C-alpha cells in the first residue's frame, strides 16, 4: 500500500505528515477558489451575452422611432437641417463617464452618460418653424443614445470578459486539473504512506514492548521461584537444627530411625 502510486520523497515522520496535511489543505482550497472564480466569470459572461442580445433588439426599435421623429422634423422645418446641425455642433452636451465594477477580481468598465449643463449648440435650429418637433426629436435621440451607451457598456464588458475568461480558463483549467489529478492525489498518497509507515513503527514498538514485558515477567517469575526455593531451603535447614537437639536428648541410633526425608536444596 505504501509503495502504491506516485508520492513525494519524504521521510515518514510526524512532522512531514503535518506538512503534507497543510499542503493538501492548501491545494484543495486553491483548487476550489480557481474553480469558483472561473464559474463566477462564466456566469457573468452568459448573463452579459443574453443582455447584449436583448439590448441589440431594443436598439433596433429605438433607432427606428428616432429616425421617424427626425423625418417629422424634416417635414415640419420644410428642409434639410442636416447641414445646419453639422456646422453648429461645437461641444458635446452628451458625455461619457466610466466606472468600474469588480467581478471576482476582474475590473469591468461601464459607461455612464451624463449631460453637461448650459451647453446648447442648436439654440437656433428650428427657430423659424418646427421648433417643437426639433425639441421632441432631440429628446428621442437622447433616449436612443442612452440605450446605445448602455449597449456599449455591455459590449465592452463582453469583450473584456471574453479575453479574461480565455486567460483564466487557460490557467484555471490547467491549474485545477493539475491540482485535481496530480498534486492532490500525490499528497494524499504521501499522507497514506506516512500513516502506514507510522502505523508500522507503532506496531513494531508495541511488539517490542510486549516482548520486553514478557521477558520481564519471565525473569520475575524465575526470580520468585528462586526466592521461594531459597526460603523453603532455609526453613527446612532451621527445622533440622531444631530437630537435632531432640535427637541429642533422646540418644537413639540414627541409623535405626528409618529413612530421613530427602532434603531438597
Amino acid at each position, binding site marked *: 500500500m505504501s509503495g502504491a502510486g506516485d508520492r513525494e520523497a519524504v521521510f515518514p515522520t510526524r512532522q512531514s505528515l503535518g506538512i503534507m496535511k497543510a499542503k493538501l489543505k492548501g491545494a484543495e482550497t486553491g483548487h476550489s477558489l480557481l474553480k469558483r472564480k472561473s464559474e463566477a466569470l462564466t456566469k457573468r459572461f452568459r448573463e452579459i451575452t443574453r443582455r447584449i442580445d436583448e439590448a441589440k433588439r431594443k436598439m*433596433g426599435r429605438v433607432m427606428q422611432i428616432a429616425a421617424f421623429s427626425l423625418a417629422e422634423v424634416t417635414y415640419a422645418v420644410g428642409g434639410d437641417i442636416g447641414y445646419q446641425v453639422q456646422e453648429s455642433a461645437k461641444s458635446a452636451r452628451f458625455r461619457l463617464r466610466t466606472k468600474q465594477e469588480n467581478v471576482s477580481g476582474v475590473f469591468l468598465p461601464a459607461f455612464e452618460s451624463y449631460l453637461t449643463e448650459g451647453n446648447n*449648440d442648436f439654440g437656433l435650429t428650428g427657430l423659424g418653424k418646427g421648433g417643437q418637433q426639433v425639441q421632441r426629436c*432631440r429628446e428621442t435621440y437622447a433616449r436612443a443614445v442612452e440605450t446605445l451607451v448602455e449597449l456599449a457598456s455591455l459590449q465592452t464588458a463582453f469583450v473584456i470578459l471574453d479575453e479574461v475568461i480565455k486567460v483564466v480558463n487557460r490557467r484555471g483549467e490547467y491549474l485545477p486539473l493539475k491540482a485535481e489529478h496530480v498534486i492532490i492525489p500525490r499528497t494524499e498518497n504521501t499522507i497514506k504512506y506516512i500513516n502506514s509507515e507510522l502505523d508500522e513503527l507503532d506496531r513494531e514498538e508495541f511488539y517490542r514492548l510486549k516482548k520486553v514485558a514478557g521477558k520481564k515477567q519471565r525473569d520475575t517469575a524465575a526470580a520468585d521461584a528462586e526466592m521461594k526455593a531459597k526460603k523453603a531451603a532455609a526453613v527446612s535447614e532451621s527445622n533440622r537444627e531444631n530437630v537435632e537437639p531432640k535427637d541429642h536428648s533422646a540418644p537413639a541410633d540414627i541409623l535405626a530411625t528409618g529413612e530421613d526425608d530427602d532434603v531438597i536444596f
Partner: protein
Amino acid sequence: MAASQADYKDRQFIAVIGDEDSVTGLLLAGIGHVTSPPDSQKNFLVVDGKTETSAIEAAFESFTTQRKDIGIVLINQHVADKIRYRIDTYTAAFPTILEIPSKEHPYDPEKDSVLRRVRRLFGE
C-alpha cells in the same frame, strides 16, 4: 486588468460614422464635439453615396486608434459593411464599436461582428 484605468478615464465622447440622417439625429442629441483649433477635429463623419471607402477607413482609424478621448464609436451597419474586415479584426475593448441601424437599412443581427462572436461562443 485588460485595460488600465488610465486607458479609459478620459474617454468621454461618442463618435459617429453614418449617413446624414443618423448623424444629424445623434448630433441633435448632443454628442457632436469639435476639438479646439488649430487642429479642430470633428467626432462625426457623414457618409453618402460618394464617400470613398478609404475616407471611412481613415475616420475609423482616427476614432479608434489615434484619438484617445472617444469611448464609443457608433457606425451605421451599411457603412460598417464597407469596412467589415476592419471591424471584424478590431478586438480592443476601447473604444467600443457599436453597429447601429440606419433609416434605409434595417438592423440585421446576423452581420453584427459582436453578435456573431456571441453566436460562435454558444455554438449556434
